[in-house]
């Protein structure tokens, strides 16, 4: 019973932590640490919620979730004969078992579906790019999309492609373009698409959950900030900031739904490029790293813990 209670508390703890982290502002001063923390919270929440249900359901086996699952399926295969439990399951445990397995299957299915859908969308995007985009000797290695709107993005993957629209080329000065390309290059190198994928998947699966929406939005912003930080090593942060503002003020393109507050995010990025905040105190940074390590380890430990 201890494992079930601990897992349930851990799951609630993760929700509280996510809620706190979504409104925290120290994260902007250390985006990489914050991203790591978000990832461990997400993973732990999934394992703890399913684990709590399963630990309760499989408690009669008395050997923890992993062992219990093993025994359960063993006895299911041998049709309840042999090494199964003698006492029949009561209703609440059966419900918990079904709920736990269903939640686990749902989380995995959502992730797999998101990966598949993302890969398919990218493949089509690449194909269309190869048909319509052109190359410019002035900006080597970049695909140019003949469209008056301003945009710059990358199609991540093993062979990542950076794309800039003709509108964006007109909008930006040479230094600003270099800054934008450095930013996109950071996305490519650090594989930020993989960081975003599980959060985007969860948001699509449960769009009404506010906490999931906030989590996805924070991670998306943090990823941009991490890319800004990497880009500023190779270019002038000021030019990156003016490039950001120019994109925002370019206009002429419709605004995506749910982009309210996008300007706030742009201003937050601009402000930290112009006036970078002091680095977080060392104990705090190490504390957060330790917290994320403990979180990540805790749920798997509780899965194998007997009782």
């Amino acid at each position, binding site marked *: 019973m201890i494992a079930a209670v601990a897992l349930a508390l851990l799951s609630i703890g993760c929700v509280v932590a996510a809620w706190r982290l979504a409104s925290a502002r120290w994260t902007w001063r250390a985006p990489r640490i914050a991203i790591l923390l978000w990832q461990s919270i997400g993973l732990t929440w999934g394992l703890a919620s399913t684990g709590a249900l399963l630990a309760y359901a499989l408690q009669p086996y008395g050997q923890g979730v992993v062992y219990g699952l093993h025994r359960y399926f063993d006895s299911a295969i041998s049709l309840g004969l042999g090494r199964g439990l003698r006492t029949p399951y009561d209703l609440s445990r059966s419900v918990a078992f079904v709920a736990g397995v269903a939640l686990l299957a749902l989380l995995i299915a959502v992730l797999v579906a*998101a990966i598949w*859908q*993302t890969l398919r*969308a*990218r493949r089509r*995007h690449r*194909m*269309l*790019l190869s*048909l*319509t985009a052109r190359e410019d000797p002035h900006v080597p290695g970049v695909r140019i*999309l*003949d*469209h008056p*709107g301003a*945009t*710059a*993005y*990358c*199609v*991540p993957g093993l062979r990542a492609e950076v*794309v800039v*629209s003709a509108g964006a080329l007109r909008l930006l000065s040479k230094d600003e373009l270099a800054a*934008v390309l450095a*930013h*996109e290059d950071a996305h490519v190198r650090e594989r*930020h*698409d993989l960081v*975003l*994928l599980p*959060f*985007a998947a969860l*948001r*699509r699966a449960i769009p009404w959950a506010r906490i999931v929406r906030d989590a996805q939005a924070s991670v998306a912003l943090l*990823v941009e900030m991490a890319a800004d930080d990497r880009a500023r090593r190779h270019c002038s942060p*000021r030019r990156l*900031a*003016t490039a*950001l*503002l*120019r*994109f*925002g*003020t370019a*206009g002429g*393109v*419709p*605004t*995506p*739904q749910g*982009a*309210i507050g*996008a*300007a*706030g*995010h*742009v*201003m937050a990025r*601009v402000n930290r490029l*112009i006036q970078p905040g002091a680095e977080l105190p060392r104990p705090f940074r190490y504390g957060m790293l330790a917290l994320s390590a403990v979180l990540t380890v805790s749920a798997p430990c509780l899965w194998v813990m007997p009782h």
Partner: protein
Amino acid sequence: MDILWAQGTALTAREVGKLISDRDLAPTTVMTVLDRLTRKGFLTRTRDGRAWRYQPVRSRDAYVAELMLEALDLTGDRSAALTRFAQAVSDDEAEILRKALLELEEE
């Protein structure tokens, strides 16, 4: 594809091959490429005697527009397929950014 878009009429593989002047491609190569593009849904073909005539399904601009929609995250599916440099903002909010840009440029 560019040639088919530029011509605006349905062409046979032989005609496409002739128009690709900068590279000397075997007719079978051209045919394979056209066939693959057809199977992927970018071209349609109609019988013309013993040959096929190929025609683009949609205009080049339509595809560019589709790419742009995805690039600006306007498709509404919120996938993590692309990583974008900056999001578009609404007109009211753009005013705030315009002021900030002026300030930065004056300094």
